[in-house]
């Protein structure tokens, strides 16, 4: 077991493009760190540099305190799980799993025992004589895991290992991988573009954008306190609602004007966010869909500020119900948001009027219909504020 330290790591491709820039991160011993970001953000390149499959153009990489920039991949004691599993097609499951041990010339008896032990751990006992093409996607995934864990390496690297599985299996394997990692206690870097995997699996999450690290923290902290618009838009599904609003001083404290609505900002929030410095200026205001709630089943409004809304669209998901409406405030558009949300809510909500599409969560059995006028309760304690210029969260 070992910790991994990336110190100002950079990757420059031959065409001059920096895929990863000045990446500094420490992954503690036995920790599972999820590297997450949209495609092309450099997360896989970063992982491949740790693996030794890609040269490091700048910075230093330490594994277990040892600088390994110039250490060959095979001497780094790292195992990797590939997105496409990359099982050797001509070998049986047992041979696939045993390959690395055979290369390190372990005694036959030990190899057999460890293959059996690994197979038991992963529920592959019945499949040991099969070849990869006779396996289902989930089984291949397990074999790929087996190939990695049999070596008892210092570090696991996983490159989108679940992206080729169907949705149900993905949920299942998510739990399996996480449990396995905890049980083996191996330091793990897990790359994914799926923010659900990031939220559910990682001890900590590192969000990357265009080769640059945005934020590293526990999933909850990243979710509750995104450092900038990109992270706010990327983490969370459906994504955070964002619109432009002006900060004002009211008689009882700070207010924020969002279109025709004027929201009182709780004193605590105003203080932490340093809103006093923003009086009279425009900021980007964010609120997560779950902090915008419809009336309860008996029609009573939930607590908080009541925002009048006309429902544009309803998505009943069974366990929850998403209601979309248009807020008459100018939308917060930026490259970061578009990149984070992959186009964003605009397309989902079919704008019918000027304004910003917002998403609220209603009671799953709510009778709300398109065209209904309802009061949506906004939890003002959960407001986020961002600087429209720097796109950073205020007060951080």
């Amino acid at each position, binding site marked *: 077991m070992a910790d991994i330290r990336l110190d100002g790591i950079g990757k420059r491709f031959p065409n001059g493009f920096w895929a990863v820039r000045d990446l500094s991160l420490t992954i503690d011993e036995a920790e599972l760190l999820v590297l997450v970001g949209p495609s092309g953000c450099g997360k896989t390149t970063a992982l491949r540099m740790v*693996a*030794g*499959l890609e040269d490091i153009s700048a910075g230093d990489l330490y594994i277990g305190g040892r600088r390994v920039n110039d250490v060959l*991949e*095979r001497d780094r004691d*790292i*195992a*990797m799980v*590939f*997105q*496409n*599993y*990359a*099982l*050797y*097609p*001509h*070998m049986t499951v047992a041979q696939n799993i045993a*390959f*690395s041990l055979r*290369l*390190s010339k372990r005694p036959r008896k030990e190899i057999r025992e460890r293959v059996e032990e690994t197979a038991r751990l992963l529920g592959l006992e019945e499949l040991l004589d099969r*070849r*990869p*093409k*006779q*396996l*289902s*996607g989930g089984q*291949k995934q397990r074999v790929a895991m087996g*190939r990695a864990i049999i*070596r008892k390496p210092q570090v696991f690297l996983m490159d989108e290992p679940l992206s*080729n599985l169907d949705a149900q299996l993905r949920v299942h394997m998510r739990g399996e991988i996480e449990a396995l990692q905890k049980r083996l206690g191996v330091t793990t870097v897990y790359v994914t573009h799926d923010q659900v995997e990031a939220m559910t699996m990682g001890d900590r999450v590192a969000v990357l954008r265009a080769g640059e690290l945005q934020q590293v923290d526990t999933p909850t902290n990243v979710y509750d306190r995104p450092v900038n618009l990109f992270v706010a838009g990327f983490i969370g599904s459906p994504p955070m609602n964002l619109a432009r609003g002006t900060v004002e001083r009211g008689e009882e404290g700070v207010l924020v004007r969002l279109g025709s609505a004027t929201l009182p900002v709780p004193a605590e929030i105003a203080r932490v966010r340093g809103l006093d410095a923003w009086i009279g200026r425009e900021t980007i205001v964010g609120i997560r869909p779950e902090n915008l709630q419809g009336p309860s089943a008996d029609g009573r409004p939930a607590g908080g500020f009541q925002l009048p809304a006309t429902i544009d669209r309803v998505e009943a998901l069974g366990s929850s119900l998403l209601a979309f409406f248009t807020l008459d405030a100018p939308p917060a558009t930026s490259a970061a948001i578009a990149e984070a949300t992959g186009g964003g809510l605009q397309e989902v909500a079919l704008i019918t009027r000027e304004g910003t599409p917002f998403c609220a969560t209603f009671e799953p059995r709510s009778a709300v219909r398109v065209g209904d006028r309802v009061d949506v309760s906004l939890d003002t304690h959960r407001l986020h504020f961002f600087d429209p210029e720097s796109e950073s969260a205020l007060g951080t």
Partner: protein
Amino acid sequence: MSTASATVEPRVRRPRRRRATGAQVLKYAALLFAALVVLLPVYVLLVASFKTGAEAEPSRAWALPDVWSLDAWRQAWNGEQYGLLPFLENSFKLVIPATLISTFLGSLNGFVLSRWRFPGADLVFLFLLFGMFIPYQAVMIPLTQIFIDVDFPEGIPRLVFAHIVYGIPITTLIFRSYYATIPEDLIEAARMDRAGMLRTYWSVVLPVSAPAFVVTAIWQFTSIWNDFLFAVFIVDDPEQWPVTVALNNTTGSFVTPYNVQMAAALIASLPTLVVYILLGRYFMRGLMAGALKG
């Protein structure tokens, strides 16, 4: 060809009670005609080889033999004057090592030029490809001179060496293209499993190379077997001639025994046919299935 076939077409077509469109009939007629054109020389070869010496003369080339005789085949096989047997043996001594070695070298080259690349790999490949476009004639004198200078063992060994070297560009090209279809992930997985270059080649790449080996081996076997020019200027000793050179010498100075020549030509071309028929079945597909997601 197509205009010729159109004029001949009414003769070739046989009336059938099948619903065939005019275009189809035309197409098959043209194909049949082309097949006939290609097979006619073989027919002449075959019938002549079963004729006696007296009967086998150019004016009666098209006729079936009056007397069917195996005499020409016997003479061509192991007759005192024209027997090809020892030369067939020479050819095998040449073609088997030359094919195996050039194919294997092509496989190694293809691997390091596509999946275990080194700086400048593309340039090296480009230069290798140039080798394909150098005609035999251009290297005749320098090649002979080098053999003499380094005192290379004479006869078949020289020929084997020449064919190996000349085969490298094409075998490399075939393997490089084939290996480009092997997922990079597979190579990287081997690297992460701590396999080095040779181990990766031996344990991961070679086992999935069968289709490329078959294609390359057929190609090399055929072209080395059929080569005449290298053999004729590299091998001085008639005892070591491959069958192609020996075949050329069945043309006597005074008499030309056509029947024996035809039988000899058929014998000389049999091995390439056999190789194709045998190995052609092993053109494997789908071996890579399962390497990637199902």
